[in-house]
């Protein structure tokens, strides 16, 4: 911005900010190590790999179930396994995870059973009843709203002198909501142990990332809050792990929150109700598949000599079998009693809900359950 002044020129954003981001990488698409690997034993590397494979299988099964009318609308994650597994793997059990609707793998890694996840998408609230020892919040459908919950939780932990950190997951689209802004600003002000994990998969349903914001990167949005921001190759599980791990440590050490932009891609539709051919080319999908996160880690493991093709085949088979069992268990779930609709509105059921429940029960006794033969 030039003014007529020669002595003084306004210092502007253009002077202060040079976009020097490039996604941090540790693995090439061919699985070669590009830097020093994070401190992970072979068993941990293989565990991450297993999670990624299982997530892929789960995803494919869920989409099939939906296509067959055995599951509701579903949001597939395939392509985003490294971003989710790498980040969740860096959490302590006592840390808290705040997912949006596509974080099946992250939630599973942090302890939510696959069955619970499937139950959720099967239109059953039991899928939001997290097991007592699992620090995963229920799915947040309204975009961005969970970000501030994560801040509140980690702020609360800090006020109580605890070390628990929180990670909030959201997409590139989620960065446009007011809740993103208010959440990151609070985190900066209270210097909370919060990690803001943006999976930038370059689309919000049909809207490309470039039309979501004029910022060159998502990571640079951290500048607005005086907090740290970083961009990482979201299909590189080692890089994702390293960056998240460090952000969590910084948070716990009182060095503040971090915004992580993990660049990745969803291979499938936004949800099973979406038709991605309306807004993106299949070549683009194919390009991304070359950088597949599972393939990349597998190559690394094979290169490293801790994995074999034979073991790999067996692993995929096992994963299929395990997810198959999950699906069986899902389909065997009984319908919940209608009391459940009323029972959890308040800790104690007030008169008006008791009246309404009675009305419904009388009605069902007389006319039958309108859900019979339906689910």
């Amino acid at each position, binding site marked *: 911005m030039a003014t007529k002044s020669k002595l003084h020129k306004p210092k502007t954003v253009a002077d202060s900010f040079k976009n020097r981001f490039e996604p941090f990488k540790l693995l090439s698409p061919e699985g070669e190590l590009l830097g020093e690997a994070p401190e992970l034993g072979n068993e941990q590397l293989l565990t991450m790999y297993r999670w990624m494979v299982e997530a892929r299988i789960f995803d494919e099964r869920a989409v099939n179930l939906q296509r067959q009318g055995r599951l509701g609308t579903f949001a597939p994650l395939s392509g985003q396994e490294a971003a989710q597994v790498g980040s969740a793997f860096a959490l302590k059990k006592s840390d808290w995870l705040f997912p949006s609707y596509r974080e099946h793998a992250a939630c599973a890694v942090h302890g939510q059973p696959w069955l619970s996840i499937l139950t959720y998408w099967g239109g059953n609230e039991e899928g939001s009843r997290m097991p007592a020892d699992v620090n995963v919040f229920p799915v947040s459908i309204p*975009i961005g709203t969970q970000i501030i919950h994560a801040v509140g939780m980690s702020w609360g932990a800090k006020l109580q002198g605890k070390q628990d950190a929180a990670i909030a997951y959201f997409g590139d689209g989620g960065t446009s909501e007011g809740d993103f802004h208010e959440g990151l600003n609070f985190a900066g002000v209270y210097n909370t142990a919060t990690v803001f994990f943006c999976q930038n998969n370059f689309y919000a349903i049909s809207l490309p990332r470039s039309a979501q914001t004029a910022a060159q990167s998502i990571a640079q949005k951290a500048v607005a809050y005086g907090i740290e921001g970083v961009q990482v190759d979201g299909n590189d599980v080692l890089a994702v792990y390293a960056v998240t791990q460090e952000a969590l440590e910084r948070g716990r050490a009182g060095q503040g929150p971090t915004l992580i932009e993990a660049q990745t891609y969803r291979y499938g539709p936004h949800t099973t109700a979406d038709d991605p051919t309306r807004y993106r080319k299949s070549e683009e999908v194919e390009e991304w598949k070359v950088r597949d996160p599972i393939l990349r880690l597998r190559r690394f493991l094979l290169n490293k000599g801790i994995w074999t093709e034979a073991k790999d085949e067996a692993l995929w088979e096992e994963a299929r079998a395990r997810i198959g069992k999950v699906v069986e268990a899902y389909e065997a779930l009984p319908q919940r009693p209608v009391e459940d609709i009323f029972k959890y509105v308040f800790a104690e059921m007030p008169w008006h809900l008791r009246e309404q429940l009675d009305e419904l029960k009388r009605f069902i006794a007389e006319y039958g359950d309108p859900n019979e033969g339906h689910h």
Partner: protein
Amino acid sequence: MAHLTLIQAITDGLRCALRQDERVVVFGEDVGENGGVFRATDGLFKEFGRRRVIDTPLSEGGILGAAIGMAAYGLRPIPEIQFDGFLPMAFDQMLSHASRLRWRSRGRFSCPLVLRVPYGAGIHAPEHHSDSPEAYYLHTPGLKVVVPSNPYDAKGLLLAAIDDPDPVLFFEPKRIYRAIRQEVPAQPYVTPLGKAQVLAQGNDVTVVSFGSMMPLAKRAVERASALGIKADLIDVRTVWPLDVEAITRSVAKTGRCVVVQEAPRTASFGSEIVALVHEKAFDALRSPVVRVAGFDTAVPYYRMENDYLPNEARILAGIQK
């Protein structure tokens, strides 16, 4: 004349408006190339281009807030909120500004915008995709709230809403987006706001409803008729300001009233109908107005939503009460 579904009639209405008035702009999440997640704007991007049919960032407050600025400037914005469950994010802009801009500026500024929102339950959608939030906007002074129940009205009410000088919340009952087809004239026409439609006539009871409940109410009224109970069936169409006269006139005749809605019961449209009928037809009423409504809980996830939603049998039971 074309044989259209409700959602096609809406697309058609938008097309007419975009054609006849340069000031009309359609925008929202995924309304452009993608044609909207329900395809309500299908083809419009192609026909009218990126200055008339515009994708927005993911930001409901931004969508409505920008529409307010545009409307005050003289345009006729038709923003879309993708689902009922995300409308609360625009609540403050609706309440603090859209609803009262004319009032506070003593008419110097106004807010002629139509906010379209796919709305209601019954399509097996995920959480937060099944709400019927009309009561919040009924209670808010300065807003008009419209819910069509059939393709013909959908187009006519939409065009009336776009013509209206004040902000209109246009709730589209997604459950019946594709339920039926009707003959819909190709040319623009207007179905006036604030006028109810009487769909069946009878002397025994008045049934008041709107939107996706209408087909169910209609079938319940037919079954009641077979049982010898004849009902006036009133589709209010404009939920507010209400055609109260149509209702009180009918109740004066029938002496009984049933109001049917998807939304939770407390402090709702139904409550207001009870209150108005009670105030205005006290002497005519032979028994209490019956509220057939959703329960005072969130809409259950899809496996149990049918337990929650009023259905034919529950409406019939209300009529027989």
